[in-house]
């Protein structure tokens, strides 16, 4: 009789490999065969992981169709195990998986669309934050501006793509009823995925300088360094306008003078 450790190890092996059936010698068959019994668990597990992926990646599913999605999900589930009991964190490597998934190679934009959906999913569950303290900011001595470091909200993500992923995302929402075709050559995009004060998530297209500025801030660079990087992208970049906009919409939620 196998100990608990051995039983669980061989049970798990048989879930992902029908031929690794040593656990079945420990299973009482009754009116059914032991393979049929294991198959019930195999089905349940594949279904619940697939449902978890479908919940995070609805646009990917629409783009590739239900059948193809199941096929891709099955491959992913077998090769990329879950590492925790919280199913909401499952699927973070699906975008990079799609990049190397042979059968999806023609859909070059698919991994970026998937990454946009993963960011959206993460932002939904992220920590809440209070608005930046404008008064405290106005009290900072101008001589200290050089050492200011802003902090991005935990509930925002930045990404860029060589494809019009925002448009692809938009026309594949359930609530959208217009033209479905997107011109893939219409160019890339930079996006801010942001949960607002009402905890609703919006996808904001970003100009190159704003994107640069926010990327520098996300790396905790000093204000002056961020500003120089943004000005290198666009000489007309306006810091005041930028601060006004991104403090108000709660992308910037804190600062320090480190």
């Amino acid at each position, binding site marked *: *009789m*196998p*100990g*608990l*450790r051995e*039983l*669980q*190890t061989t*049970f*798990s092996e048989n*879930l992902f490999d029908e031929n690794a059936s040593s656990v079945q010698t*420990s*299973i*009482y068959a*009754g*009116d*059914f065969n*032991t393979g*049929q*019994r*294991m198959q*019930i*668990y195999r089905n*349940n*597990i594949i279904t*619940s*992981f697939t*449902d*978890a992926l479908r919940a995070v990646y609805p646009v990917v599913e629409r783009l590739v169709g239900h059948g193809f999605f199941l096929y891709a999900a099955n491959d992913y589930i077998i090769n990329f*195990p*879950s*590492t*925790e*009991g*919280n*199913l*909401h964190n*499952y699927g973070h490597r699906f975008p990079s998986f799609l990049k190397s998934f042979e059968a999806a190679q023609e859909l070059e934009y698919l991994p970026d669309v998937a990454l946009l959906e993963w960011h959206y999913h993460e932002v*939904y*569950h*992220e*920590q*809440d934050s209070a608005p930046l303290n404008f008064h405290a900011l106005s009290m900072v001595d101008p001589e200290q501006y050089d050492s200011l470091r802003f902090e991005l909200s*935990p*509930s925002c993500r930045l990404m860029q793509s060589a494809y019009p992923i925002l448009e692809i995302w938009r026309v594949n929402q359930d609530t959208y009823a217009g033209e479905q075709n997107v011109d893939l050559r219409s160019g890339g995009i930079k996006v801010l995925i942001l*949960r607002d004060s009402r*905890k*609703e998530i919006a996808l904001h297209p970003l100009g190159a300088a704003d994107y640069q500025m926010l990327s520098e801030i996300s790396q905790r660079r000093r204000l002056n360094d961020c500003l120089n990087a943004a000005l290198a992208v666009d000489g007309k970049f306006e810091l005041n306008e930028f601060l006004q906009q991104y403090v108000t919409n709660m992308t910037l939620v804190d600062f320090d003078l480190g």
Partner: protein
Amino acid sequence: MRNGENNLPAQPVSARAGIGLRSPHYQDLLQCKPDVGFIEVHSENYFGRGGLQHTYLEQVRCDYPLSFHGVGLSLGSTDPLNVKHVERLGRLVEFYQPDFVSEHLSWGSVKGRFLNDLLPLPYTEEAVQHLAERISMLQDYLQRPIMVENVSCYLEFKHSYLKEWEFVSAVADQANCDILLDVNNIYVNAHNHDFNGEDFLRGISGNRVKEIHLAGHTAKEYQQGAIIIDTHDNRVDKSVWALYQQAIQMYGPKPTLIEWDTNLPELQVLIEEADIAQNIMLEIESARVA
């Protein structure tokens, strides 16, 4: 969700029928405020640090007694208890102060790989000891008693020498924890493994049962007959209602939860199911008084 403790008034769960809350029903529930006994949620759905689901749950916590039901801790696994998971649960419990906290008598991970399912254990002394130790660790960490739930099974191990109800009772006794008795799971296992559901009920001490679960199931047909799968995707079967009636007759009224996870209907359907459970408890109580 903010850090640390909340000063929330106690909202004890009483022996009434409640419903499991899933995200599509948040707004309906908070708008209609149906008269149900308590609300149960899956703890893991709130492991994220913030966002809309916490806003909703904080409102729910004000209006209803709350029960946290875990599905992912893998109590029966031979891997070490997942510290991150336990800590996350601890912070949630500290913040929301739910009246009930529960988990399952199953395993779901081995060698770091999580199957995120409620997998069966052999009914042996080794498994009893192992579960009891881990439940004790969890109760010590959370500084409160927890309930453990019997699960549906589609296979049995040859080396199980305890009856399932003996196994459940032994774990509860050794860990000194409470039992969340899933009557649908008893019915499913009684059918799948050919025992009498009443024997299960009789084998459990009613004092340990702090909550009962009810849900819909689905029969999967094979050439050799049917295996019943615990699908949580439809109304409670009439045979399960009959077994529930016997449970209430034996144990007296207990907080009873309607669970529904897939093919979620309108909130109203869950409320109707809860009303059926509530009426069964009322009828049995009034017959007893009369």
